[in-house]
């Protein structure tokens, strides 16, 4: 187990190194560098100034040389400066990461709490009105466009009822818990609804498959009650494919709630990465994307370890 963990960690480290080069290269190859973008918004900037600034920012050097320079600095813990925020990259990332962790963590947990029981109930009562109702909810969840759902919530709860703040992380001049929690209600609700739909569908199909297995019939024949059969036997095995999907989802959650963050003006990682790519803020985009990659790798490793717990037949030899 320890050997397996060490092996996977080393693999992940190597992959991150390769990814850092690939991402750096792709960002560097995008048309228009930060100075070009700066110049396009300033009608008075001269060609001489553009050349001077490109030299100052090192943009006149070959991309491999720039990457080597970045890597050497990063190894020493210096991830560079953000062009768009004029602060060190880690200083920009840290609060965004916290915001995203709260938003994603809450909606992920809520989605699990809602979706897994609903998926199981739908699977236990297939083709009944309960199943149809849950399916309708699930389909609505993942087919609603996120921007539409978010705007609908704002129009209902902020514009019409005036109950909740329309966006942001905190009201200006307030830093209390309740104000912060109020700002989270709508983005968390929107994300939970969008995430839960998928999980319901996966749980339902995995459970239907598991309930057809011989060991379930054996458990029933042994006189085990319906709850014991479903939760004690079928659910544990049905969770293996669901965990795979959740692991993949978890990594993308940190960079994937872009639309929700944009509409609710929520200062999270998705919006940060998007803005940094558009604004040629290479350092932030690179570290943000690497973080999302690392998280996907880590959640997949966690999923592999959870398989062993869910199914003792799986070994890590």
């Amino acid at each position, binding site marked *: 187990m320890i050997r397996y963990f060490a092996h996977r960690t080393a693999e992940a480290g190597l992959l991150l190194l390769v990814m850092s080069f690939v991402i750096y290269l792709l960002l560097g190859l*995008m*048309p*228009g*560098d930060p100075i*070009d973008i*700066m110049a*396009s*918004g*300033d*009608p*008075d*900037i*001269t*060609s*001489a*100034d553009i*050349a*001077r*600034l490109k030299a*100052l920012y090192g943009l006149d050097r070959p991309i491999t040389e720039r990457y080597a320079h970045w890597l050497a600095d990063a190894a020493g813990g210096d991830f560079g*400066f953000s*062009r*768009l*925020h*004029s*602060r*060190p990259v880690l200083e*920009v990332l840290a*609060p965004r990461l916290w915001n995203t962790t709260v938003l994603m963590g809450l909606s992920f947990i809520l989605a699990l709490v809602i979706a897994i029981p609903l998926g199981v109930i739908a699977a236990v009562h297939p083709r009944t009105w309960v199943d149809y109702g849950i399916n309708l909810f699930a389909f609505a969840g993942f087919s609603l466009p996120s*921007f539409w759902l*978010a*705007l609908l919530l*704002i*129009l209902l709860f*902020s*514009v019409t*009822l*005036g*109950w*909740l*703040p*329309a*966006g*942001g992380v905190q*009201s*200006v*001049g307030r830093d*209390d818990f*309740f*104000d912060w929690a*109020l700002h989270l209600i709508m983005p968390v609700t929107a994300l939970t609804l969008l995430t839960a739909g998928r999980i319901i569908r996966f749980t339902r199909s995995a459970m239907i498959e598991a309930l057809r297995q011989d060991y379930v019939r054996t458990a029933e024949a042994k006189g085990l009650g319906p709850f014991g059969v479903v939760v004690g036997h079928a659910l544990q095995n049905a969770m293996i494919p669901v965990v795979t999907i959740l692991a993949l989802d978890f990594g993308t959650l940190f960079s994937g709630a872009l639309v929700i963050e*944009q*509409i*609710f*003006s929520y*200062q999270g990682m998705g*919006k*940060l990465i998007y803005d940094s790519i*558009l604004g*040629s803020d290479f350092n932030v985009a690179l570290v943000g994307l690497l973080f999302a990659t690392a998280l996907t790798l880590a959640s997949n490793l966690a999923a592999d370890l959870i398989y062993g717990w869910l199914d003792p037949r799986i070994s890590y030899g």
Partner: protein
Amino acid sequence: MRLGWATWFLVLVLAFTGVQPGAARAAAKEELVIGVSQFPTAFHPNLESHVTQGYVLAMTSRAFTGYDADWELVCMLCTELPTLENGKAVIEKLEDGTDGIALTYTIVEGATWGDGTPVTTEDVLFTDEVGKHPKSGVSNAELYRQILSIDVIDQKTFTLHIDRVSFEYNAINDFEILPAHIERPIFEEDPENYRHRTAYETDFTNPGLHFGPYKAVEVSSGAHIVLEPNETWWGKPPFFKRIVIKAIENTAALEANLLSGSIDMIAGEAGITLDQALAFEKRHGDQYQIVYKPGLIYEHLDLNLDNPILADKRVRKALIQGIDREAVSQQLFEGHQPVAHGNVHPLDWVYDKDVPKYSENLDAAAALLDAAGWTDMQGGVRHNEAGTPLALELMTTAGNRTRELVQQVLQSQWKRIGVDITIRNEPARVFFGETTAKRKFTGLAMFAWISSPENVPRSTLHSEEIPSAENGWAGQNYTGYRNPHMDQLLEDIERELDREKREQMWHELQTIYAEDLPAIPLYFRADAHIWPKWLKGVVPTGHLNSSANAVETWYAEDVPN
């Protein structure tokens, strides 16, 4: 029943936290919350230039000189503009025998940084030092290159020695003064990393950085900036006790925030697009003041003159007469974005109302195309003798709804005279970063130029400004326009001090532009300002010196001012 409990719970939470519907509106008279669509990328006034940054800084500081709402150059931090007439501008001979100019400015007596330190010539010398340093990161260093030396006369008065004489000799709009008492130690310690370590980026709420009507008291990166009155401000005391500038990047959410009362107004300088404002006006126009201000953003079609089809002036003239720009302005923009008849805005004093104008004339367009050899009509498209179709590519920024709409109208209108237009759009960063900058568009490129009053279009029309691999793609003459007469005129205008002679030169420039048509003028873009009914005193400018430069004149109507 469950819903009832949930509702009661929410009501209790809201009551406990003090958040109630309309709470924001109740406080609106003391506080003004402004919605903008982008958060400033930096606060240092000389390192980068950005619309929202300029908007915020206009409230916390002032440039030495700038343009007012009537597009006239005025002193903002100085007491009087130096002119040849008042003797504060004196032409002097430089060592190389050419003419330079000495300009004497006096800083406003009461100008004081927010921490009580007076704004003095020491700050002027420091700003110049930063501007001249090759590694300080100042983006637009042209003005500092032109300043040969500075003579300090006293604490408030100084003389700039400039290396040339131009008609706008006394405009030092880019000279944004820096507080030496705060910034000098940071700069001197490590000039190369000054751009990262400056207090503007690390400690923007330091009152010593602000001498305008307001000072920044809170900055939440990417979200909002809170401003409160600056006790050291020398001018009219501002009305609002607090101004909050909130960044909401999604324009639909920006509208929803306005309707919910989370923000009071949307800044025209960095808010929603004109088509969104028109739609908003139809739905909620009775609740807000909506003001459209045409400005110095010139929307046009650059034509690649290296394309043999477009190199023929008759084809260019046929193209402009083949479209109904007036109808586009009326139908798509309800007349709020006036048709451009050249690159000079009608509100600019150098605009010549007698400049040749083109309107829709399909017969004239057809005749011009016939004369140019495009006579053979096959399948609705004109061909020349060699069988080449009259086909052109029309490009713009993908995702810009207004431009894409205009593009489709133009395509259908040109079809009437047998011109086959293929639309090919690209994301803005590809379009501006590669396609226009490296002249990779083969036909027409639709985009806008931002300028200032009496802005000499040297960078877009002078033949030395054509980007090429040899000059490292420098310059903005993307059309490849070459006209020795125009080159001479552009150089002469810059040097001509006599206003009347300059007016004549501008007339000539606009006539050549209309005759040569290196670009097809479309319209001047308008900013859409959305204000609450109670807000008064805001005067949109339509140029880069935003309405916030007069923030001290803004007030709420029903409170005595």
